[in-house]
């Protein structure tokens, strides 16, 4: 019997949380932007080598400019976080350190993956230029549009939950 795990995606408005989930669950991408209101729930079963299958119940929370204002009741019982920011919009990562610190303080034992999304809109030189901002915190640079490293992101988080 598959074991359920609650995964919550957080981040600012329009960073591509919903697109990342759609890419992972349905392997689709659309340019149409529809703002998430409240919360949207999806699920996908994944198989980690040599272990019981996991059912990832993925909570897609509406974007907020300040994650400390999130409805904490939505975060109860979270098994893993994915913090998403938009590589092409500095406003979505200018408080990265403080926001990650907030998560670490309030949910100290919950595995968290930090991802810079929309890799297709920037180049390697840009990442190197901003090395100081990203490298200490970022786990993956991904693109929901191209599907690059999205599967890896969720699989690695699932592995951390076993």
């Amino acid at each position, binding site marked *: *019997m598959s074991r*359920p*795990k*609650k995964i919550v995606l957080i981040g600012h408005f329009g960073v591509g949380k919903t697109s990342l989930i759609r890419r992972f669950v349905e392997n689709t991408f659309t340019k149409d932007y529809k703002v998430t209101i*409240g*919360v949207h*729930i*999806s*699920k996908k079963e994944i198989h980690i080598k040599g272990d019981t299958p996991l*059912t990832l*119940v993925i*909570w897609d929370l509406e974007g907020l400019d300040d994650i400390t204002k999130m*409805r904490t*009741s*939505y975060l*109860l*019982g*979270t*098994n893993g976080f994915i913090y998403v920011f938009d590589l092409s919009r500095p406003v979505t990562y200018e408080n990265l350190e403080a926001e990650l610190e907030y998560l670490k303080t309030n949910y100290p034992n919950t595995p968290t993956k930090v991802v810079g999304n929309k890799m297709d809109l920037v180049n390697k030189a840009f990442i190197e230029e901003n090395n100081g901002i990203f490298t200490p915190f970022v786990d993956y640079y991904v693109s929901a549009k191209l599907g690059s490293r999205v599967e890896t992101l969720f699989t690695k988080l699932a592995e951390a939950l076993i």
Partner: protein
Amino acid sequence: MTQDEKLKLIKDILLTDDRVFVSHIEQKIAKLEETINQKKALSVKVDPIINDKLDDFIKDIPATLGPTITETLKKEIKNSQDAVVEALFPIIGKMIKRYIQHEMKLLSERINHQLNNTFSFSWFFRKAKSKATGLSESDLILQEQSNTKIEQLIIIEKGSGVVLAEYSKTKMADEDMVAGMLTAIKSFVEDAFIKEDQNLQYIEYDLYHIHLQNFSSYYIAVVVSGAYNIIYKDKLENSILSFSTKHKIADVLNNKTALTLKLKDFFKNE
């Protein structure tokens, strides 16, 4: 000049114009005859070819024009959804109305039949039940008539919304998604009403009633179809409480298989 020659001369003088006119008419009739005969001759040869072509064309319509027509119709319907709804609404509305009228008539007949059975055992029983519960006799009859049924039961971990166990006679919905959304709705409502220790207890969805019964670390969502009134709610609450205590649910919360078996065993006849 003889008499005949004179007559001929007079005829020539008098009838010259008429002869020209007659000659014209003759030519026109000849042309007309020629056209008609030619067309008839032509049509004898050409008509079978045209007919064959037409037959082939009609036969090929589904293959050649079918997809285009279907696509065009789909597009038209998609682009004019409001117009389609507008056009169908009165027809569907009438059908639904007729169906409801028919069902109401049947229900009314059944209720009348029961009311007419005065002084029967069930009549006395109903009277006593009505007084004891405070529900009207008609409500009690309505409940007897409706087929209240448990469709799905889900034991859900509070906060996370993770499914701890699920049992359904007919698969209603994906339990993980339902559990997640119910938990999100519960969290939102319970946050919005600032008073502490209050819980969302009931959600109505289309023809279904979702009864929510809260415990300390989990809650049980029961999807019910049919009449859900205070008597049924009371009965259901008692069933869930006795299930929870009899099977010591708190002790097996981490064992999904065992919990699912217990749930199925307890509620299979409900």
